[in-house]
């Protein structure tokens, strides 16, 4: 069992590696995408400098804590879009009946699909996440914890996308639902939870679990708490299990479009 998991992870990493190498064929475009994404993320610092010139703290966050929130948000986005990029276009693959080439592969279908391509600019997000952590104050302990938290967050975000995309097996086009949930996750992730009140705050920790992916990790990095740490692990495993369950349940209803597709 452990050997099988180890092999699967190895294959997934190789798939991501070769996808990345394909994109590296055009070095200028590759480097431009990475560097410009770092610059793109960095522009938001201007927004927060201005907001903090108006008020000392925003939603209970000081400037350094907002930096950390941005670091977690960029890291989670980077992990999810670099390692599991196809999870965000899975709905189209199901709708258009393009899963055939993955079904004949000897390894896990879902993992083969979601790791079959990478978003190059996500490397820029990941680098930016660590630059922000360095600005916040990096040490060996918070470096490890930060890395662990963005991996868990990235996996959870990808799993949420898989769950909403898998609805396509039953209801046809579910890309609008998938896009909406992904948009909500990204947009809420970079604003402190303290500015939201009442029902919105409850939604952010349940239906749209930005709180579990972004806000709790920030609180954990500021002050470590074993219960919160275990909660993050539990949530990651829960969404992972749910995503696999729903995808494989839906896969039984999959209809091929008989398209000839080769994966090189």
């Amino acid at each position, binding site marked *: 069992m452990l050997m099988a998991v180890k092999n699967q992870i190895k294959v997934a990493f190789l798939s991501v590696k070769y996808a990345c190498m394909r994109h590296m064929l055009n070095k200028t*475009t590759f480097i431009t995408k990475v560097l*410009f994404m770092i610059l793109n993320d960095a522009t938001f610092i201007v927004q927060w400098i201005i907001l903090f010139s108006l*008020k000392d703290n925003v*939603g209970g966050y000081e400037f350094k804590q907002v930096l950390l929130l941005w670091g977690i948000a960029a890291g989670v986005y980077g992990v999810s879009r670099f390692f599991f990029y196809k999870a965000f276009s899975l709905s189209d693959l199901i709708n258009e009946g393009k899963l055939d080439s993955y079904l004949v592969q000897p390894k896990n279908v879902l993992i083969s699909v979601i790791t079959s391509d990478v978003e190059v600019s996500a490397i820029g997000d990941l680098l930016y996440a660590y630059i922000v952590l360095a600005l916040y104050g990096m040490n060996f302990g918070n470096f490890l914890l930060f890395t662990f938290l963005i991996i868990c967050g990235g996996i959870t975000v990808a799993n949420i996308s898989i769950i909403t995309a898998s609805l396509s097996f039953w209801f046809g086009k579910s890309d609008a639902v998938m896009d909406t949930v992904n*948009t909500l996750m990204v*947009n809420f992730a970079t604003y402190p939870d303290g500015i939201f009140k009442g029902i919105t705050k409850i939604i952010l920790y349940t239906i749209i679990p930005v709180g579990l992916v972004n806000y709790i990790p920030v609180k954990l990095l500021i002050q470590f708490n074993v219960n919160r740490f275990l909660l993050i692990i539990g949530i990651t495993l829960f969404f992972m299990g749910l995503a696999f369950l729903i995808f494989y349940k839906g896969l039984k209803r999959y209809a091929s479009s008989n398209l000839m597709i080769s994966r090189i």
Partner: protein
Amino acid sequence: MRKYWYIFQSEIMSSLQYVFNMFSRIVSYALMLFIFMNLWKYIYSDPKELIHNYSVGQMIWYVTVTEWIYFATRGRNFCNKIIQDVRSGNLVYHINKPYNYIHYLLISHLGEMFLTFILFGLLGTGLGYLLIGEFPLLTIGSILAVIVTAVLAIVINTLLIIFIGLFSFMIEDSNPFYWIYSKFMLIFGTIFPIEFFPKWAQGILNYSPIYVTSYGPARLFVAFDGRNFGIVIIAQLIYIVIGYLLCLAIYRKGVRKLNVNGG
């Protein structure tokens, strides 16, 4: 002119077929307004407080208008479409058609955005009223003036995006330049009025595309002033001429390159 009118009409008809595809963008727009309402209500601890002469209501209306223009332009897909035309060679199919490619892009995009512009305008007005509970002091004339400047803002945005897209003639994928342009517009244009930036930055922003595509129309909506309207319109017309000439220049240079490659 008639051919462009047909292109404009056919794009409107086409967008009517895919009206439900706007769902996630409508949610995004509503969400951004909701987030900024929460943010500004938090920053303005006293509802009667003025920051840089803006009340909390004016700030939320300001963001409503700037986000309306930003969302109605839908630049990312449009820029990507131009980049794909250049990269895949699809551009060849436009060259032999009896229209100018720049004019075609501009008109077809305006047609595609026509419905979005109206829908998001109505949605923004409704949401703004729901969130704030009152409208700014406006007359029919000033509302029309704001709409005219908003349309011109979208024309300028479209021209600048065409320019960025056509930059793919020079480097293979000009998408990263669009990201920076888009973020520049979002941070400096939609979230804060120019008065919120340091004095030295205000001087630059007043001459940048921010003034004509975001600040100008939004400022007119929250505090209408006839003289200001004249200044915004003149600045917008200057930007349209500059944007158009830039697009023509890069297209002519790029097409020559395409001919050489094509053999």
